């Protein structure tokens, strides 16, 4: 990728995995600032692993990753496996207000302007009437809206979403996609792991096709070709308990110039 813009995240021969077994390996490239990037690939392609690596939850097995001029706290991350206790007695308002952590930390209070910001986020996600409900009373789609409202308040420069639209109806998906478009217009960097290719073609200008390594990376239309998709399915192999030590220096990757 040739880029005039500064990168938000750059990968340098990055390998991530568990117990020496790589889930993705030899990733090189840069996510440009302000990019709206879809992360696509079959199950087991390493999409979640790559996102975890970007937030720093997973240390690289080799290679490295840099956030150019940004800090970890500039990243907002919506994981796929959410270990949220939905029976916890907390109101929707309070759950969403936690998104202001970067601003209020552990001790500062919610003053008027911050309360208004929380109300605004609830309104944006269509949750304005549910503020006083407890989170346990919400449907799956409503709860996903709560998580997006919290993301909205986090006001992060980089937003990572791991399959944000699972088990969510079309109306909710449309609303959430509109919010993602807004983030894109505001110049934030958004990376989302997705499965619905039509959705990706319609809303995401750039795509990274992953199959344990980079298959193709560039403008969505040129990445999501039959040839590339077939290749990505072949490359995603099963976990091999007795895999040999990887001697490869750099992956052979089809590069597409933007």
């Amino acid at each position, binding site marked *: 990728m040739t880029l005039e813009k500064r990168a938000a995240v750059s990968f340098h021969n990055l390998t991530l995995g568990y117990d020496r077994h790589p889930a993705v390996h030899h990733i090189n490239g840069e996510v440009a600032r302000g990019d709206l990037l879809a992360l696509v690939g079959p199950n087991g392609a390493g999409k979640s692993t790559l996102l975890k690596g970007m937030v720093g939850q997973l240390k690289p097995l080799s290679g490295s990753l840099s956030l150019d001029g940004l800090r970890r706290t500039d990243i907002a991350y919506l994981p796929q496996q959410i270990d949220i*206790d939905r029976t916890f007695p907390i109101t929707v308002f309070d759950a969403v207000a936690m998104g202001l952590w970067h601003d209020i930390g552990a001790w500062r209070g919610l003053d008027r302007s911050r309360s208004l910001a929380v109300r605004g986020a609830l309104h944006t996600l269509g949750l304005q009437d549910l503020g006083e409900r407890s989170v346990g009373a919400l449907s799956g789609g409503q709860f996903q809206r709560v998580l997006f409202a919290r993301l909205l308040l986090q006001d992060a420069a980089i937003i990572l979403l791991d399959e944000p639209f699972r088990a969510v109806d079309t109306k909710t998906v449309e609303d959430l996609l509109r919010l993602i478009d807004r983030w894109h217009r505001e110049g934030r960097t958004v990376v989302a792991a997705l499965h619905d290719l039509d959705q990706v073609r319609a809303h995401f200008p750039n795509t990274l096709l992953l199959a344990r390594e980079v298959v193709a990376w560039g403008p969505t239309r040129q990445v999501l070709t039959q040839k590339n998709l077939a290749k990505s399915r072949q490359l995603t192999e099963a976990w091999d308990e007795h895999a040999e030590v990887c001697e490869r220096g750099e992956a052979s990757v089809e590069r597409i110039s933007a």
Partner: protein
Amino acid sequence: MIHALVDPFVDFAFMRRALVGCFALSLGAPPVGVFLVLRRLSLMGDAMSHAILPGAAIGFLVAGLSVPAMSLGGFIAGIAVVLLAGFVTRSTILREDASLAAFYLVSLALGVLIVSVKGSSIDLLHVLFGTVLALDDTALFLIAAIATLTMLTLAVIYRPLVLECFDPSFLDSVSRLSSPTHFLFLVLVVLNLVGGFQALGTLMVVGIMLLPAITARFWAQDISNMIIVAVAAAFAASFVGLLLSYYLNLPTGPAIILTSGAGYIVSMLIGVQGGLLWQLMPRKHLEA
């Protein structure tokens, strides 16, 4: 009627001391219990109460029935078990409940062994069941100090603690407070157990921590209200339990905990948050 409720405390200093001690305990322990319940660590309170036994026993051996010695011993033993269990959890495949169980069982056996070899069975009964009617000044100050420290600490770590219960991975992604919060909270658990065991004994003290907290779940929809209800329930149980023990000549610790247990059963039946009787009387659902 008023006389029956007030006179025992007016007439007898030991009853007043017991009431003050139990009220102080009721300010610190139930809020800690609320967080234990919400983190699904209810049984950890029980495990920890056993873990402090050998420390208390060693303190007893060194200094006799001395409150500071036994408390310090109990505190050290409790923190040691917390740290060891935490270390094993982080560095092996064992989960926290399993590693904690392993250490507290060893600790309990050690405690019983020390007390039985060196002390009499009367002493063992003191440690296990407490002596709420014989609280001296030192014990009262200790309980009050622990209650104060608990409330201050909870105020400081409240937000990260709530977040750690509700959405731990989010807390991890926005701050580094997760581990210190967890550790401080475990220190509070140990401190309150140590503070309570003079009065109620190592076995019963968990009752005043957890029963009011569990009761509160049936009355409050939001965590701050839950804490208020839990403290109120503990106050009521202390007061009623002491009176019952006075009039019916019952052992005090069990009387207080049984009163608290009765409160739990009543709440389970008629509590507004999912009480059983409300479920038996289906009301028509609302428009939205």
